[in-house]
């Protein structure tokens, strides 16, 4: 008998269109940590016209894109929206960045004022700002774990959470979701949404390990992943 092969199957949602600021690095980071505990990470592009079956994936990355590409992705996403919502309601882990984060909500308003519908997987919404963007280094602190996360934000949208979601962190430096309420990002079930580029899982190893553990525990519940991951050193910068 060979040792059991563990693997994490990642869906890279619209990765050929929503790929603006190194978001693929999140998969590179996940794979880097997974390899250290003998877990293989494979990734598959799910793009315009492709099927998405929630049962075929253990993790998803939904990256950020330019307004133009995002407006093309939005209507196509409706086609697989119910399956993405099923993945989320079954506690599938997703890292959603910038445009991907916005599209999982109810709607977002583009820079030019056009309203684009999301899939309402979370009860969040995104307004625009007339002329400015939030650009710069950002540091947040997660109120539950006390962990600090580092990143770079570059967004025009202003996102607001409802009382059904928690923020990923409270802003220490930077603007966060909307520059007003001190929130950055979102946590809803196992969805982690954020405006962080950097990318977030490369710069914040603790979060990468936490999400990897969520994916593995969900898929292989009888294995003690926490002990295995305790020996892995997270990168943080």
């Amino acid at each position: 008998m060979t040792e059991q092969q563990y693997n994490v199957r990642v869906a890279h949602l619209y990765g050929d269109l929503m790929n603006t600021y190194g978001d693929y690095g999140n998969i590179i980071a996940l794979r880097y940590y997974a390899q250290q505990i003998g877990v293989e990470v494979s990734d598959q592009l799910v793009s315009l016209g492709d099927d998405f079956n929630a049962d075929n994936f253990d993790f998803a990355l939904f990256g950020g894109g330019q307004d133009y590409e995002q407006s093309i992705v939005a209507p196509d996403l409706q086609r697989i929206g119910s399956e993405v919502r099923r993945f989320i309601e079954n506690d599938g882990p997703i890292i959603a960045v910038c445009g991907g984060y916005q599209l999982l909500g109810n709607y977002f308003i583009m820079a030019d004022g056009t309203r684009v519908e999301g899939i309402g997987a979370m009860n969040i919404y995104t307004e625009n700002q007339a002329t400015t963007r939030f650009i710069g280094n950002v540091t947040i602190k997660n109120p539950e774990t006390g962990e600090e996360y580092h990143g770079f934000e570059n967004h025009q949208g202003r996102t607001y959470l409802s009382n059904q979601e928690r923020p990923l962190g409270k802003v220490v430096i930077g603007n966060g979701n909307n520059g007003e309420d001190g929130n950055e990002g979102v946590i809803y079930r196992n969805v982690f949404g954020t405006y962080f580029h950097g990318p977030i899982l490369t710069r914040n190893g603790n979060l990468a390990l936490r999400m990897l553990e969520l994916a593995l525990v969900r898929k292989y519940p009888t294995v003690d992943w926490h002990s295995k991951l305790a020996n892995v050193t997270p990168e943080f910068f």
Partner: protein
Amino acid sequence: MTIRSSFASFAGKSTYWLLHDVLHRGGTSLPGKIATNIDPDILKNLAQDFDVVLVTGTNGKTLTTALITRVLREKYPDIITNPSGSNMIQGITGTLLTAKTAHNQRPLAVLEVDEANVVLITKYIKPKVFVLTNIFRDQLDRYGEIYSTYQKIVDGIKLAPNATIIANGDSPIFMRDDLPNKKFFYGFNHMDQSADFKAPANTDGVLSPTDNSILHYHSITYANLGDYFSTTDDFKRPQLAHAVTKINQLHPKFSNFDIDGTTFQIEVGGLYNIYNALTAYAVGRFFEVTPDQIHHAFESNAQIFGRQESINVDGKDVTIVLVKNPVGANQIIDMIATEADDYSLMALLNANYADGIDTSWIWDANFEKLHQTNIKNVITGGERYKDFNVRLKMAGFTDQAVYPDLNDAIDAIKAVPTKKVYVMATYTAMLQLRTHLLEQGYIKGRVTE
């Protein structure tokens, strides 16, 4: 010229004289700024004396401008160009203001123009030719998105409908608008044209402008450049007026290739530099420079490739290359992959304004591909050395030496186990390293370009 323009011109020229001849400082922006403050229309008056070739795009502008100037000089001795870095409106005003021309014939001005400044320039100058190189993601923290960069260029072209456009036909973005201008395209035709595939997922700008379907390709040179076509309608790469018809040899220090059946060599590596040469060829042919003359211009080009120079550091053969975005970095990786000898890589990252303040782009570059090359040793450094260190660690390069202080980097170069060293650096990291190389006597002259 109006009295106001004359006074503005006098004030600008005096400032240039003061800076240049008295204080011995370079720069054309301050004279341009002073002249423009006195007469906002000064540029219009100045440009009336020139036939302008306006070069714009995100990557390769400086080198392409230098090559075009070199090619056109074969036939037109009376030609001016702007120094690298003076590509915004004030620098261009200063360039025209301080130009010394013989006036035997109508002089040519080959001007590198920053993408966002095209519309500011064409408000005053009606170029004879627009040269469009490419639009890749570049310091988007400055200009937003590739489509808004494109739109800024198009807005500028729309003010000059009589100008001829000479554009990279391999770049789908340049076919988004049906502009009334006369157009010529150049591109690469050296590969098998029967293949049918999509660009890798991490490629920007692959949507067809007709119906937003994802473009297919018969061939790709790099990034989204290639012989593209739509599978849902008849949108495809335009007819090429000039093309690279064969690649004969790629080497880190030179490239040998055929354009329209004639063999050329440039003394610099990198496929992207063949695009720069092809662009200069296309512009040269438009101005009726012969292929023989262009061949001659390319032969004597070694010194204009300053951004990729080789330095001897106590017997180490050190090549410094500038990186600033993922497409450029991937091209450098491909160039280094043509190195036949063992080499060490020093990767230096800063995130100052001139570098681009967001370092995320390093994750879009394919450093994993370095495993297929003769790489023996990896060193990371610069103010953001941690980012590069983790990027390369996650690409599978463990045991990297790390040098946050570039003063120590030269000792690190001396200590590597290989004779050849490639330094991949962002702009301000490159300047810092050059400062130390200058201090230690390995290079001469000034640090800045």
